[in-house]
């Protein structure tokens, strides 16, 4: 159903949208394309292929985790050919201990309560297919250059969704920005970010973008190096209880964001935990920082 109906329908819809946008027959503005790349207004859900029960019972020794929890691989590797992540795994014993630590249970908030995770382990939100496909088609149509798309997505790359840093870049994109000839739109967006006042201040997302932009058209090698260091870092942390527990907390923060979205239909969408609700972010060395 997903591959045979939903995705093709989204692709046709996106094609029609962008066609209307380029030809000036749309109420949307070109800025909307960037919003879909930089802001998380909707999500899809991803999970392990391993059933939680099989892991907890020790039937399976390892639990595979969705790589999209760690990096936006569909866009960065799938569209831009940057280094793909290795498949992340955690030992079942580590996963099971985490379920106990965080009192993970399924409940409808009323009568039903069952200890444990959802059927397939570790359900988390990921970038929505419609947003990825908009990026893909915008690149194919030449609306976005590959270089601009790569630089935008590499800002705060350890947080593939709900990144305040990437969203902040939108402030520099004028509401009335228009498509010009060939690469003008991408150049205009990059110029607006790089020449902003905050672009000179280290630590700001604008500064991070400017540094990434300076890699030029040969961005793949330096970006791959950044990604590879990150992949090594989170893979190492996944071997420890402390490391995986921090990812459980981060996952819960992202689920909390989804629970506040209109797409949440049931309290049983995710398991419940005792993890305090607060903002958490991943950093490039694989650590999770609490707000």
């Amino acid at each position, binding site marked *: 159903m997903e*591959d045979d*109906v939903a995705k093709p329908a989204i692709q046709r819809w996106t094609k029609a949208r962008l066609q209307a946008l380029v030809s000036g027959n749309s109420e949307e503005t070109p800025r909307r394309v960037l919003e879909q790349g930089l802001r998380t207004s909707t999500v899809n859900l991803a999970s392990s292929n391993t059933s939680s029960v*099989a892991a907890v*019972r020790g*039937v399976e020794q390892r639990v*595979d985790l969705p790589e999209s929890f760690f990096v936006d691989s569909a866009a960065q*590797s*799938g569209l831009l050919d940057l280094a*793909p992540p290795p498949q992340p795994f955690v030992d079942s014993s580590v996963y099971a201990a985490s379920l106990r630590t965080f009192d993970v249970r399924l409940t409808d908030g009323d009568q039903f309560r069952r200890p444990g995770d959802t059927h397939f382990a570790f359900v988390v939100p990921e970038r929505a297919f419609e947003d990825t496909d908009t990026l893909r*088609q915008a690149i194919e149509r030449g609306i976005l250059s590959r270089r601009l798309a790569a630089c935008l997505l590499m800002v705060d790359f350890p947080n593939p969704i709900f990144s305040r840093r990437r969203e902040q870049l939108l402030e520099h994109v004028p509401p009335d920005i228009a498509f010009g000839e060939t690469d003008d739109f991408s150049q205009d967006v990059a110029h607006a970010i790089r020449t902003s006042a905050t672009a000179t201040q280290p630590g700001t997302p604008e500064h991070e973008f400017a540094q990434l932009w300076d890699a030029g058209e040969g961005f793949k090698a330096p970006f791959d190096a950044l990604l590879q260091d990150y992949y090594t870092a989170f893979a190492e942390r996944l071997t420890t209880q402390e490391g995986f527990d921090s990812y459980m907390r981060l996952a819960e923060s992202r689920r909390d964001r989804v629970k506040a979205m209109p797409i949440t239909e049931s309290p049983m969408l995710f398991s419940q935990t005792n993890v305090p609700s607060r903002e958490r972010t991943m950093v490039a060395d694989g650590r999770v920082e609490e707000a």
Partner: protein
Amino acid sequence: MALLDRFDTPGRLEELSEDHRFARSRRVAGMFDEFTGDFPQFYNPTVEDTPAGLTLATIAWPAFPARVLREKGPGAARWELADGSRDVQDEYCEWSVERGDDGKITRITFTTEVPEYWEHVAQNDPDLLLELYHQFVDPSVDLDDLFRVDLDDPSDGRKYAPRNRWNTSTEGRLAHLVQGSNALKAAIQLVAQATILRERDDGTPVTDRQELVVCGGLGEPFRNSDPQIAEIVNDAAGLGNEITLLDPVGLYLDDLQSAGMETLDGADAAEFWRVERGAPDHAVRASFAVPEDRGYVVGDIKLHGRPITRGAQVADEVRIRIGAGVKPGDHQPVRRRCGE
């Protein structure tokens, strides 16, 4: 109520003589009979009656190997691995790829033909075997290429070699399944064994499909096929029913799901899916190729936005199925501990 006269050939293939079709039916019946004694809720429809209103259970799963997906994740690396060896194509479906001089894919051939059938052809009608290889694999195949002498027992004569030099590669045109788990007997055994209900050491029932497969020794928990078959059969057995496999017993290819494909001329890519062997509703071999007069090839087609550069991409869009029949019964199944 009726007994099945005989098991038909996979896909209702008509190439065998009457004598050899009966012999083949007896061979399949023998596979059933190996398990009916130990598994009373599994039955042989040529021995036991089947009611006219048998409940049909079609069990289907994706052709792309779930184990590769789990190891490599959803990115492009999984396609490269799955295209690299027939040994990882373990969902009762294997495929091979042909390319043009420019490296673009021109044809992908999928098969669900079980090796036992081809062994039967080889044993009974070597001329037909060679004819099939010439027609579907390569006109230059020599009969000697297809047989081997058992060095441990030379007196046993020549035996058909399923993994012969023409049927090991993921390139070119394959003949039939060769991956170790992709066999008819394995599927029959799985269905028979899955009729046993299981419980954990603490007495709680095992219902999770992956746990069920491990607990019952029912194959590989991370294949698409084994847990799917085991779960459906186990559910039916839990109600006291009896289970069999539907005639013609075999693994079948469903039609290609082409909704995510973009062709250069706007044609529905499903038009390029051609059943090569088997009845239309029981396909055991099919190929995906663009007719020459269209002026483009498979490698020019986009699938979910990406050009098709691997056969495995198309395997994502292919479904495999096996038909099971559920006969009402009054068994009182007793749960067994894992490993028993």
